[in-house]
C-alpha cells in the first residue's frame, strides 16, 4: 500500500495485525512513541487525514491511501529522520519548555495542534488522553496557553531560566530515545514470565519453540552464569544483597523471568514463548509482609544467602532483608514526661514509577568485538561494572551508553534488561533489542516499597517534643534490591529534622513472594514522612497549636546536631538553611483567602507538611567531568550523568559557562556514555547538580585558569589581569581569541567530585482542599510549595522539578495503587486501571524558593529533584483532616476508601475542632 507521511508517499507492506504506530516507526518516523501501546497515554498521537488519533490503536492497513502527519512533519513536509519547519505549537512548547524527559511531547504537541478554541479553554478534558509523568502539566498548560517560561539571560548564565539544549529536538520528535535507532538485522528478545508466586522450575521444553521459523535462541537457567548479583545499582556494589540470577531455577514472584527467546521478529519471539512448555512445582508463597518473620513463614531465600552491607539484618530470619535499630536518649522517659502522646499507624501502598519510556535496551558488538549496550538507564557506569562482574569481562570490553532517557524516577537505578540483552548478544553474535511492554513495566519491574509505619510522638503542653518513636515494616518483595538503602534513608532525615532528645527507630525490610520493590523518588522518605508529618499534625491539634508554630518550635536550626538514631559522626552539614523561609512562604500563602468550596456539599480545610533531605546519598557518589576547548574555539563538556528530563544538561552548561565567562550555547554537552569519562556513580539521589555539577564546575575553573595562563603567556601579562570573555581571553589592551589558544592543540581540564561533605535541602507543602461530604471526592483548591534549593541554577527548570514532584506525589496520595490479588498477581498493569495524574487531576502549584547560598554545592546550589515528592501525602492528609475531622491512615485517599471516615467524622465531631482550652489526653492505642 501507499501511505503519505509528512508529504512523502511511502510504500509499505503492513502485517495483518500490525498497528500504525509500529509501521510508522519502521518507515523511519521515530517521533511516534510507544508509551503504553494501549491507547491510554497518547504518546503516539498522529493526524490521520487531519484527525488526531492514537496510532497504536489504528490498524496499519487502514492507512492505505491516506495522509499521515507525525510530529516531525507538523510544520511542513520532511523526510524520515528529519523535521520540517517549526510549527507554532512546537514553538510554544519550546518557549514554555513544556516538557522534561520529552517522551510524551510528540503526542502532546500533536494533540495540542488539533484543539479548537473551546478545547483549549478546557484542557482538563481536552488532554485526558495524554499522560505526562514529569512536568505536572503546568508547563504544558503554559505552552498551549501561549505563556512563555524561558527568560532572556540576565547577567551570568547561572541563575537564569535558560531552555534545555535538547528542546528543538524534543518538540520536533527528532530526539533519539533508547530504541529510536535503526537496528538493521537486530533480533528481538522476549521473556516468558512466571505465573506462580513461588515455584521450582522442573523442566523447560524448548524443542518446539526452537523449531519455529525465525527463532534463533532460547535462554533458560541452564544458559546463564551461576553468579548472583543485585539489580540495584549503588556506588558500593555490596550494599545490596547479591540474591538474583539472570534466569533462576526458582521463581519468587509472579512475573519473574523464566526464559528468554531471541528471534528475527517480535511475532516469532511471541510465538516461541507460547511454544515453551514449563513444568513448575508450586511452592508455598508468602504474600503478607506481616507474616514474613513468623518461624513457619515460607522462605523467600535460602538461609545461606547473604544480605546487603547497608543496614544488614541482625536477626537471622532469612526473610529479613535489612534492619535499622537505634535509640538516642530515653524514649520511654520522653513519653513519660509528655503531656500528650499521639500514636498511629500509617500505611503507604505500592506505586509504580510509570515513566513514559519503559525499560529497554539494544545491544551489539562493535567493530572491535566490544559489547555495546544502549540502554534506558540512570546508571550507565554502574551497569557497565555490574555486567563486567557478571560476565567476567574487563571494563574495556563493555560500553554502556544512553540515548535520551524517557523518565526514570529511580526505576532505572536498576539493571533490569541489560544482563539478558548482553547474554543474548554474546550467544548469537547479533544485535539484540528488548523493549519491555507497559504490562511488563507494571507487573515485573520494581515499585516503591510498601510500608507500614507506626509512629509514637510525645510533646509537652508548650509544644516541645519529648519523644519520637518509629516502627517501620518495609516490604522489599522477592529480592533485596534497595532494601537496606531505602530503609536507612526512610528512617533518617524524617526525624533528623526534629530537635528531640529521645528518638528510637525499629525498622525492618522483609522479603515476600511479590514483585521486588526498588528505588523510587524520595527513597523511603515519602512513606515515613507521610506517617511522621501526619502524626505531628495530630499532636499540634491536640495541643491547640498552629502547625507552623509547632514545627518552628521543634525543627533543627543551624548548629543543632542532625541526629536520627545514632550519635556517630557523619558528613552532613548545614551548607545552608532555608527551612524557616520555606515555612514562612507557605504559611503566608495559605493565610491568603483561598478559593471557595465548589458548593455547600464540600468541606474545606488547609494542611501542611515539611521534609528535609540530604543533598547527596551517603556512602560515596563520584563524578568526573572533562571539559575541552576545541580548535573552533568552542567547548565540549563530557559528563557521565544521564539526562532523563531532570535538566542536568542545561544546568551543566550554565555552570560551565558561568565559570568560563561565556554563553551556554558555546558549550556542547555530551553525556552518559562509559567511553566519555572515567567514572560517574549515576543520576540518582538528586546528584546531577550537586555532584555532577560540582565536577563540571571544577573542570571549568581549571580550564579557565589554564586558558588565562596561556593567554597571559602569549600577551606577556600576569594571569590575574586576564579574564575569560565569551570567545576570547581579555586583558589590559589585548583580546586573544579562544580559537587561537586552541591552535596548539585542544586544551582540556578534568574535574572530579566525591559526594562528600553533604548538605541538607528542605521542602514545605501546603494545600487547601475541598472534600465532598458524601462521596469522599477530594479537590485541591490550592497547592503551595516552598523549596530550599540553595542558589537556584535554573529557576524555570527547578520549578518544573517541584511541579512534577508534587504532581507525581498527588498521584500516589490520591489515586495510584498497584494492587496484587490473592495469588500475588498485579491486578492493574495498564494505565487505564492504574491511574496516574492526568491534566485534570493536577492543580497549579505556586512555587517559592528560599533565598540561600550553599557552601557545599556548586556556586551555592543544592539538590532539588526527588524531594518535592516527600511532604505531599501528609500535607494532603492534614488538609483533609482539617476539612472533615477524619484522620486518614493509608494512601491513596481515594473516594471509595475514605468516604466512610469522612461521613463518620462529620457525625462524630464538628469539622473544625476547638483549638484553645482543650483538655489534654493521652491517645493510647
Amino acid at each position: 500500500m501507499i501511505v503519505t507521511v509528512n508529504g512523502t508517499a511511502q510504500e509499505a507492506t503492513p502485517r495483518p495485525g500490525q498497528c500504525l504506530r509500529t509501521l510508522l516507526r519502521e518507515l523511519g518516523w521515530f517521533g511516534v512513541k510507544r508509551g503504553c501501546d494501549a491507547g491510554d497515554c497518547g504518546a503516539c498521537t498522529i493526524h490521520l487525514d487531519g484527525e488526531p488519533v492514537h496510532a497504536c490503536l489504528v490498524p496499519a492497513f487502514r492507512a492505505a491511501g491516506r495522509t499521515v502527519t507525525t510530529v516531525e512533519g507538523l510544520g511542513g513536509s520532511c523526510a524520515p529522520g528529519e523535521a520540517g519547519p517549526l510549527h507554532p505549537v512546537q514553538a510554544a512548547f519550546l518557549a514554555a519548555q513544556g516538557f522534561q524527559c520529552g517522551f510524551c511531547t510528540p503526542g502532546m504537541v500533536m494533540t495540542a495542534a488539533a484543539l479548537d478554541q473551546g478545547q483549549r479553554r478546557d484542557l482538563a478534558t481536552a488532554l485526558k488522553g495524554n499522560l505526562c509523568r514529569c512536568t505536572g502539566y503546568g508547563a504544558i498548560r503554559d505552552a498551549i496557553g501561549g505563556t512563555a517560561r524561558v527568560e532572556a539571560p540576565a547577567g551570568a548564565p547561572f541563575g537564569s531560566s535558560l531552555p534545555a539544549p535538547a528542546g528543538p529536538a524534543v518538540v520536533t520528535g527528532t530526539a533519539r530515545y533508547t530504541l529510536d535507532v535503526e537496528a538493521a538485522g537486530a533480533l528481538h528478545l522476549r521473556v516468558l514470565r512466571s505465573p506462580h508466586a513461588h515455584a521450582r522450575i522442573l523442566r523447560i521444553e524448548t524443542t518446539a519453540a526452537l523449531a519455529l521459523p525465525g527463532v534463533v535462541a532460547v535462554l533458560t537457567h541452564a544458559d546463564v552464569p551461576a553468579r548472583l548479583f543485585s539489580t540495584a545499582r549503588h556506588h558500593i556494589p555490596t550494599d545490596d544483597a547479591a540474591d538474583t540470577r539472570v534466569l533462576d531455577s526458582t521463581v519468587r514472584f509472579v512475573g519473574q523471568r523464566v526464559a528468554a527467546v531471541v528471534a528475527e521478529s517480535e511475532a516469532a519471539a511471541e510465538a516461541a514463548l507460547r511454544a515453551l512448555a514449563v513444568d513448575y512445582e508450586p511452592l508455598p508463597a508468602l504474600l503478607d509482609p506481616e507474616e514474613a518473620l513468623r518461624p513457619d513463614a515460607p522462605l523467600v531465600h535460602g538461609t545461606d544467602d547473604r544480605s546487603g552491607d547497608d543496614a544488614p539484618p541482625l536477626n537471622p530470619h532469612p526473610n529479613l532483608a535489612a534492619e535499622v535499630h537505634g535509640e538516642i536518649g530515653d524514649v520511654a522517659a520522653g513519653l513519660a514526661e509528655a503531656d500528650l502522646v499521639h500514636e498511629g499507624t500509617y500505611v503507604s501502598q505500592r506505586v509504580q514509577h510509570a515513566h513514559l519510556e519503559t525499560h529497554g535496551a539494544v545491544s551489539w558488538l562493535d567493530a572491535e568485538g566490544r559489547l555495546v549496550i544502549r540502554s534506558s538507564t540512570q546508571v550507565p557506569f554502574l551497569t557497565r561494572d555490574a555486567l563486567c562482574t557478571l560476565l567476567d569481562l574487563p571494563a574495556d570490553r563493555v560500553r554502556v551508553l544512553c540515548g535520551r532517557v524517557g523518565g526514570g524516577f529511580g526505576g532505572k537505578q536498576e539493571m533490569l534488561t541489560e544482563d539478558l540483552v548482553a547474554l543474548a548478544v554474546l550467544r548469537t553474535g547479533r544485535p539484540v533489542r528488548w523493549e519491555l511492554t507497559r504490562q511488563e513495566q507494571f507487573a515485573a519491574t520494581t515499585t516503591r516499597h510498601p510500608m507500614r509505619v507506626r509512629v509514637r510522638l510525645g510533646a509537652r503542653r508548650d509544644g516541645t517534643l519529648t519523644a519520637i518513636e518509629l516502627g517501620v515494616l518495609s516490604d522489599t518483595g522477592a529480592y533485596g534490591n534497595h532494601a537496606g538503602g531505602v530503609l536507612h534513608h526512610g528512617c533518617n532525615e524524617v526525624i533528623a529534622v526534629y530537635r528531640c532528645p529521645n528518638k528510637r527507630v525499629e525498622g525492618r525490610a522483609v522479603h515476600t513472594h511479590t514483585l521486588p520493590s526498588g528505588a523510587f523518588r524520595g527513597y523511603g522518605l515519602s512513606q515515613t514522612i507521610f506517617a511522621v508529618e501526619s502524626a505531628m499534625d495530630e499532636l499540634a491539634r491536640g495541643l491547640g497549636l498552629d502547625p507552623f508554630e509547632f514545627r518552628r518550635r521543634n525543627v533543627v536550626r543551624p548548629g543543632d546536631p542532625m541526629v536520627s538514631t545514632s550519635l556517630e559522626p557523619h558528613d552532613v552539614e548545614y551548607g545552608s538553611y532555608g527551612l524557616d523561609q520555606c515555612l514562612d512562604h507557605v504559611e503566608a500563602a495559605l493565610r491568603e483567602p483561598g478559593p471557595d468550596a465548589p458548593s455547600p456539599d464540600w468541606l474545606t480545610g488547609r494542611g501542611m507538611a515539611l521534609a528535609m533531605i540530604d543533598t547527596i546519598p551517603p556512602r560515596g557518589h563520584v563524578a568526573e567531568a572533562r571539559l575541552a576547548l576545541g580548535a573552533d574555539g568552542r567547548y565540549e563538556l563530557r559528563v557521565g550523568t544521564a539526562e532523563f528530563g531532570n535538566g542536568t544538561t542545561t544546568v551543566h552548561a550554565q555552570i560551565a559557562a558561568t565559570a568560563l565567562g561565556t554563553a551556554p550555547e558555546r558549550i556542547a554537552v555530551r553525556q552518559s556514555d562509559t567511553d566519555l569519562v572515567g567514572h560517574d556513580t549515576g543520576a540518582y539521589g538528586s546528584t546531577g547538580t550537586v555532584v555532577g555539577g560540582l565536577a563540571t564546575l571544577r573542570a571549568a575553573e581549571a580550564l579557565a585558569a589554564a586558558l588565562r595562563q596561556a593567554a597571559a603567556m602569549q600577551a606577556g601579562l600576569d594571569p590575574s589581569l586576564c579574564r575569560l570573555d565569551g570567545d576570547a581571553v581579555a586583558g589590559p589592551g589585548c583580546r586573544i581569541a579562544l580559537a587561537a589558544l586552541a591552535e596548539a592543540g585542544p586544551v582540556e581540564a578534568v574535574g572530579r567530585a566525591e559526594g562528600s561533605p553533604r548538605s541538607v535541602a528542605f521542602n514545605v507543602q501546603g494545600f487547601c482542599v475541598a472534600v465532598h461530604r458524601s462521596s469522599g471526592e477530594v479537590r485541591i483548591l490550592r497547592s503551595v510549595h516552598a523549596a530550599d534549593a540553595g542558589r537556584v541554577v535554573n529557576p524555570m527548570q527547578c520549578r518544573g522539578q517541584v511541579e512534577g514532584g508534587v504532581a507525581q506525589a498527588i498521584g500516589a496520595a490520591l489515586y495510584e495503587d498497584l494492587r496484587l490479588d490473592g495469588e500475588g498477581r498485579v491486578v492493574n498493569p495498564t494505565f487505564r486501571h492504574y491511574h496516574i495524574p492526568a491534566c485534570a487531576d493536577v492543580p497549579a502549584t505556586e512555587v517559592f524558593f528560599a533565598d540561600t547560598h550553599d557552601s557545599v554545592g556548586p556556586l551555592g546550589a543544592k539538590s532539588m529533584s526527588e524531594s518535592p515528592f516527600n511532604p505531599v501525602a501528609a500535607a494532603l492528609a492534614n488538609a483533609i483532616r482539617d476539612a472533615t475531622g477524619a484522620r486518614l491512615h493509608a494512601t491513596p485517599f481515594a473516594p471509595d476508601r475514605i468516604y466512610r471516615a469522612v461521613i463518620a467524622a462529620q457525625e462524630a465531631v464538628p469539622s473544625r475542632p476547638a483549638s484553645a482550652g482543650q483538655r489534654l489526653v493521652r491517645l493510647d492505642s
Partner: protein
Amino acid sequence: MDLNTIGSIVTPGSRADLDGWRPGDAWLAGGTWLFSEPQPDLSRLIDLAGLGWEPFAVTQAGLSLAATCTIAALDRIELPAAWIAAPLVGQCCRALLGSFKIWNVATVGGNLCMALPAGPMIALAAALDGRCTIWTPDGGEQALAVLDLVRGPQETALAPGEILRRIDLPAAALRRRTAFRRVSLSPNGRSGALAIGTLDAGGAFVLTVTAATRRPVALAFAALPEAGGLAERIAREIPDSLYYDDVHGAPDWRRHMTACLAEEIRRELAGEAQA
C-alpha cells in the same frame, strides 16, 4: 499494539460476504479495544468498515445508530428540538474514559459489545429504551433490548458470528426530560457510578443505573417517587452482589453513590416538574 497472531484481514463489502465465521475471528469496528490488549487467541479480523453502513439516521421514529457510528459522529448529530433528551448524548460521550481522539475511532456498537459496566453508550442506549438489531449468521435478524444485550462485565447475549448491526432510540424516549449524574475515583476517571433519570410527559420516571452495577439496571416508576420510595426500590432491586467490584470503585461505595446520585436526580426532576 501489534496483534501478531493475526494472519489475515477480511473486508467484506456486503452482508453476503459475511459468512464463514470461525473460531479465532473477531469483528473489527473502531479497533480501539481490540488493539489495546494482547489478543493471543485471535487469528483473523473481519473489518466491518467495508460494509459502508450509514452512521446514523434521524427519522420520525427516532434516532437510528449504526453499530459502526463513531462516538465523534454521534456527538455531532443535530437532533430535533423536540427531543429534549439530546443533552444526554453529549453527557454520555464525555463520560467515556477515552479522549476526543478516541471518539474519532471508537464506535457506539463497540462500546455496547464490550459490555463494560462503565460503558457510557450502554448507559445512553439503556436509558433511552435502545433496541438492538442483530444480524445472525444464518442471514436473519434479531431484535433485543439493550438491557438484555448486556448481561455482565464483558458478557453479551451475542452468540459467535452474530453482529450488532444497529441501535434504535425511539422518538418517545428522546422526548423525555433527563437528568444525568456520574462519579468516578478521579475527576475524569472511569465511571464508578453513572445514573440517568428520565421523566416522560405523563410523569413516568425511570432510573437507569450503570457503571456501579455489573450490568445496566432500569427501575421504572409510574410517577416520580419520594426519597424514601426511591431508596427502598434501589435497595430492594439492586442486591449487593450486583454492585461491581474492580479498581475503579469498591462495591460498597458504588452502592452508596448509586443512592446519592439517584436522589440528586430525583430532586432535579422534581424541581423541574414543579417549575
